């Protein structure tokens, strides 16, 4: 074990050669990560408790928020390249700061329909800021590293992002909710995120101007294709069609990732209590991912991609079973005496098992996309691989809103306590529905294995956790 840790960190020595700007970009990533992940944990509760959205509307607007992030990510890449790293960071952090302070203050000074429309507008501005920041961070890291230290550079970025996500949970989210109460605490998290945007703006100011000049020189004379042009070129290719089939087949299990932000926070506070430490349980996932990355990735990398994909997806899907079994079964487990313990037990078990599946599945997913793409079109395939999620995320937003309002509404715990909720009307049934959707993915991949793997061209890129992987993990 000690060897694995030593080996993982020994490669970081190569980063002695990177410029201070590389670390400034990572600082931006860290501070924004604190803000982004804390906001994401509480956003569904904020929309219902502070803005007055119904569960249905809150789910829908979370879905729309993610839809716009993906849409903007398709569009802003070229804009970031043209503006340069520094200016793009200025604009992104300004947009994030403006939207976050708007979202934090608005419920205290406005109410009703006006507040709702303002919040909707601010969510779209925040989506644009997020898309610009993520795209620009990736571009900046590429720019501030050399081909020799790039892989390690992105590993550091991924590590810092997960550390930020972990602290955002137990530190930021739980800290503010404990200090100011669940409703006002959520507002304070938005205000905190505004401060983080200011710090990111300052970090951007410290980045050397010469890099932008160099980037502009690098770019001059290069005509890059837009995402829509790339799509028009590749959509007829059989490799791309097979990739789309693969992506659609894996949607069920990949949507489990979005449940973590869209469904879980409400599930936690409604089946347990409003002042539940939801940040702490959200920290468990990144902590497990970081530990797993350091200790197990070299072992996992020895296995075949498709096998790992199926195993990882199966584990991730199975994690939902913990939440789907009737709570009377959990109450029968020795040592569990009450319903609070039963819910805590299944929540922690689901997070742990899901994280193990994610650890195996997520990096392999990116490798798979890279392996089926023709060598000259890897970047295009990578970019377009977000398309099915682009469609599925908002739909999942609406679906999650519907399911929450029917099976996990505010006040359901009181009715569970008194035996009013049969299994088919319970939160456990909601998770069974999600489990069935998720379980389709590994089964479908096994059944269609020949179709989706016949185009796998080369595994030589396998094992690299590069920029799109980090992007996928971030959102």
């Amino acid at each position, binding site marked *: 074990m000690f060897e694995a840790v030593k080996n993982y960190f020994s490669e970081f020595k190569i980063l002695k050669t990177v410029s201070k700007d590389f670390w400034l970009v990572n600082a931006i990533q860290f501070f924004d990560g604190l803000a982004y992940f804390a906001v994401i944990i509480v956003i569904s509760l904020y929309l*219902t408790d502070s803005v*007055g959205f119904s569960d249905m509307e809150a789910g829908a607007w979370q*879905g729309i928020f993610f839809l716009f992030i993906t849409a903007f990510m*398709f569009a802003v890449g070229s*804009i970031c390249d043209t503006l340069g790293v520094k200016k793009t960071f200025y604009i992104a952090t300004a947009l994030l700061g403006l939207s976050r302070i708007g979202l934090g203050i608005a419920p205290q000074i406005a109410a009703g329909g006006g507040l709702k429309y303002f919040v909707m507008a601010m969510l779209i501005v925040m989506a644009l800021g997020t898309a610009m920041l993520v795209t620009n961070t990736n571009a900046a890291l590429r720019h501030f590293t050399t081909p020799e230290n790039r892989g390690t550079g992105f590993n550091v970025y991924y590590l810092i992002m997960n550390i930020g996500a972990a602290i955002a949970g137990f530190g930021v989210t739980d800290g503010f909710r404990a200090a100011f109460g669940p409703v006002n605490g959520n507002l304070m998290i938005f205000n905190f995120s505004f401060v983080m945007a200011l710090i990111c703006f300052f970090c951007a100011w410290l980045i050397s101007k010469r890099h932008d000049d160099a980037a502009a020189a690098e770019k001059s004379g290069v005509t890059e294709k837009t*995402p829509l042009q790339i799509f028009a070129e590749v959509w007829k290719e059989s490799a791309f069609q097979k990739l789309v089939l693969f992506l659609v087949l894996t949607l069920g299990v990949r949507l489990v990732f979005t449940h973590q932000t869209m469904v879980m926070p409400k599930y936690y506070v409604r089946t*347990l*209590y409003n002042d539940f430490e939801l940040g702490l349980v959200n920290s468990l996932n990144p902590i497990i991912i970081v530990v797993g990355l350091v200790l197990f990735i070299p072992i996992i990398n020895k296995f075949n991609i498709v096998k790992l994909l199926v195993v990882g997806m199966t584990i991730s899907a199975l994690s939902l079973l913990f939440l789907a079994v009737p709570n009377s079964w959990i109450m029968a487990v020795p040592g569990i005496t009450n319903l609070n313990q039963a819910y805590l037990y299944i929540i922690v078990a689901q997070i742990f098992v899901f994280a193990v599946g994610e650890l195996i599945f997520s990096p392999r997913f990116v490798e798979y996309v890279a392996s089926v793409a023709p060598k000259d079109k890897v970047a295009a395939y990578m970019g377009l691989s977000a398309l099915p999620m682009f469609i599925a995320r908002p739909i999942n937003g609406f679906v999650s809103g519907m399911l929450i309002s029917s099976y996990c509404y505010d*006040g359901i715990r009181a009715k569970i306590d008194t035996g009013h909720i049969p299994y088919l009307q319970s939160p456990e049934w909601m998770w069974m529905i999600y489990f069935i959707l998720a379980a389709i993915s590994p089964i479908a991949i096994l059944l269609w294995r020949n179709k989706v793997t016949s185009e796998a061209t080369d595994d030589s890129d396998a094992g690299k956790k590069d920029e799109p992987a980090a992007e996928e993990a971030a959102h």
Partner: protein
Amino acid sequence: MKKYGPIVKDALILVAFSSIFAVVCNYGFKALKGQGVTTDPIVAAIIQNDIEQMKKLIEAESGRVNNPDEQGRTPLMWAAYANFKDTVAVSKNEEKRIEATKLLVEKNADPNLSDRDGWTALMWAAWSGFPKVAETLIASGADPEKADKRGYTALMLAAMRGNVAVARLLVEKGVRTTVKNADGKTAHDLAQEMAVKYPDRKKEYDEILSLVL
């Protein structure tokens, strides 16, 4: 400017497509869902403990104070509900909720309406641990002995949740302690059962057991 042209065009196409997609999804799911698509603004103001906003809304449309939501819950039931582990948080919330409750009953909110499962506002107050809200509701005519569809009364709910102050209030109001629910259990049985399940709250349950003997 030339270099920004195609980018802006692509961005506009994507944003337009996303917006149309979101609008279509919204209409589709609204049609599927029907009731419960929006939260009553009065309920939203109660959840936010925004009494001023609540006053404004009730003044504007006092006829809506008894409007039920998807689960059959009225604004008065929402005012009587909270789910906190921390007892200090419960008390803090009650300070706001008592104002909301008084305002609603003043505007003719019916304290005896029940939700889909037969719970009244008083039952929600008993479960949530709001003794002052419960007192206001009883003073406004709430039936303290009403039972839900499974035979649970407000006293049983207070007893099983370890809410001593509400249980004491109900006993003082002369509520019968021998009533049984659909499972044949009295408030005493429920408190005894919960005392075993939640040993950390033994003190509260012991107090309740002495009240509902």
